[in-house]
């Protein structure tokens, strides 16, 4: 019995000593920044684009002399597209690697899993591209540099009603995905407000591959367009099966579509479909064109998607905040991020509002033979929530 107490005691002591080590982080010549993302699995291009964007930003910063006289080192952990892995990798980054700040994730469900861990460890976290409103409500250490679902859903509702002049739209939602359900709710409400009718609402779950049943039900209601606020793997598959069933109406979606793989999966079936996004590579402004050119020369001529651009902006804003704070200490960096105002990023002018969310316009892109063509830019003033 006594041995057991001794053992328990020594384990406790061990744990405490490990935890204590965590406090003295970042005293070396490097600043460690953590990033968690999906580098493999069903939403792998999200994580890869994000990592590529943020690495490019940190490399540029390091080349220019770094932050506070130190170089920034980015540690990226893979969650394999499994939400249940997020807790493990984020805890590892914080407790073992002692990162001072965190970047991630693209998918809202994953950010929602990581945010409480960052909050309770007082590690500032910036999500480059999670659009679900609840993410930043977790606590005062959690920020985002993109717009939110409400806005994105409203943008697509406005586009469907005003630009496409559609009256009858069906919805196909990823029912177990916070992001997808968020967009669905706002779209439904806003589209009805603009005089349209939602003729059918069907659902699927991420990972499903057979959508014939849902699409057959939707087809029976004769919609003019289908809103599919899902991720690219399912969207590409849905587009393929939609056309196979002889349903030739455009699909509408959100930034979850933005992936170099989308076209590879859906191919011609996606021609004439529209989605809302954060920026367009067609934007002629010099900051966008410089970013696109640098990214292309760095990553084998690949075009940066919006997730790469947002990750780039998130990384730059984090470094900017550290510089202004004059330290990498959690609470001070948090205050500096919160004070970000009119930062000119690739994805537009970014100010962090009192609720730790960025306020900025959205673009609507059209899929044309593998290219995403800019159709319209919609600003927050144009849609009343």
């Amino acid at each position: 019995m006594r041995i057991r107490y001794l053992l328990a005691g020594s384990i406790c002591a061990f744990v405490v000593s490990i935890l204590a080590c965590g406090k003295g982080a970042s005293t070396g010549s490097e600043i460690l920044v953590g990033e968690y993302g999906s580098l493999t699995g069903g939403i792998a291009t999200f994580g890869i684009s994000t990592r590529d964007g943020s690495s490019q930003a940190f490399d540029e910063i390091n080349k220019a002399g770094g932050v506070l006289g130190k170089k920034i080192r980015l540690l990226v952990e893979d969650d394999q597209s499994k939400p249940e892995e997020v807790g493990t990798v984020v805890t590892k980054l914080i407790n073992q690697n002692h990162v001072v700040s965190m970047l991630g994730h693209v998918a809202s469900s994953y950010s929602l899993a990581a945010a409480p861990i960052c909050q309770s460890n007082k590690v500032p976290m910036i999500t480059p591209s999670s659009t679900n409103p609840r993410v930043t409500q977790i606590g005062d250490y959690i920020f985002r540099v993109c717009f939110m679902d409400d806005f994105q859903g409203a943008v697509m509702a406005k586009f469907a009603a005003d630009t496409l002049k559609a009256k009858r739209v069906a919805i196909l939602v990823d029912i177990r995905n916070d992001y997808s359900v968020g967009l669905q709710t706002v779209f439904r409400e806003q589209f009805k407000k603009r005089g349209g009718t939602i003729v059918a609402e069907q659902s699927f779950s991420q990972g499903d591959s057979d959508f014939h049943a849902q699409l057959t039900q939707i087809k029976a209601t004769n919609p003019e367009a289908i809103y599919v606020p899902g991720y690219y793997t399912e969207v590409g598959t849905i587009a393929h099966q939609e056309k196979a069933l002889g349903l030739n109406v455009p699909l509408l979606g959100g930034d979850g579509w933005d992936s170099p793989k989308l076209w590879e999966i859906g191919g011609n079936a996606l021609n004439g479909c529209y989605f809302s996004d954060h920026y367009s590579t067609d934007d002629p402004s010099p900051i966008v064109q410089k970013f696109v050119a640098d990214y292309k020369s760095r990553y084998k001529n690949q075009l940066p998607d919006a997730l790469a651009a947002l990750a780039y902006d998130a990384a730059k804003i984090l470094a900017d905040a550290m510089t202004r704070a004059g330290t990498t200490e959690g609470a001070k960096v948090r205050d500096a991020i919160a004070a970000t105002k009119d930062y000119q990023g690739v994805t537009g002018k970014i100010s962090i509002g009192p609720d730790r969310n960025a306020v900025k316009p959205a673009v609507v892109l059209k899929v044309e033979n593998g290219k995403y063509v800019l159709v319209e830019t919609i600003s927050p003033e144009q849609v009343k929530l």
Partner: protein
Amino acid sequence: MTTFLQQLVNGLSLGSIYALIALGYTMVYGVLRLINFAHGDVYMVGAYVGYYLSRKLQGKEPSLVSAILVMMGAMAACAIFGLIIERLAYRPVRRASRLTLLITAIGVSLFIENAAQLLFGADPKFFPSLAPRADFIVAGVRLTSEQITVIAVSFLLMILLRFFIQKTRTGKAMRAVSFNLDAAKLMGISTDRIIATTFAVGSALAAAAGVLIGMQIPKIDPLMGILYGLKAFVAAVLGGIGNVPGAVLGGLLIGTSEVMVVGYLSSTYRDAIAFGILILVLILRPQGILGRVTKEKV
């Protein structure tokens, strides 16, 4: 009504896939009394072999010939794969207790799944279109060429299997082995050879299912075999495990009811329904719809 008929077609084409996989489960169970949990993964490997073969043939116009080549290639490769699994994993433990065999099967399944993730990558892959597309509209119901292919090929294979089991010498031997392994051996039947053949045939059918789903969906990934395998297993049990027509009936039932549930209720119940049916059948008719009651020898 049109919608209902369309859903029925959707259900039958999904059900044919389940039926093809279920046949492998039921045949192996028939001869060895083994639930071959690695069978769903053989189906996945079949899909991947089909994918790489069709990539090789790509560049040429999609044609019926290349589609048949891909299908045959995948079936042959998986037949050999099935033989290897049987020879390396199951034959050494065949005389051991049934539990040992079952655990070996689970081990093989996990091994294939993880090896596939290493080999093919965890990212999903997408089948290029194989056969030229043509749609037929009958009474307002659209039959896509993919759905017709799936249903037609499945039924053709099932009829061939029926002929093979009922009319050929090997088929007769297979039935004898399934009836009583030891007695069959005493009658001079090479049971090793028959069991190996059973694995080869079952695996080839699973490969065909893999290629067909690749043509229809067209997404494949290294873990696709888990859920499809599980549902096909349910289909086999539903029809009466060990019973060949039962596996087909079970597959079609599960596929159709799944599509109807998604279409008319909600997609969230998609998987619940297959397992709900399983529980119901086990309570009401433990031997399955077409199964025979067998007395357990103690």
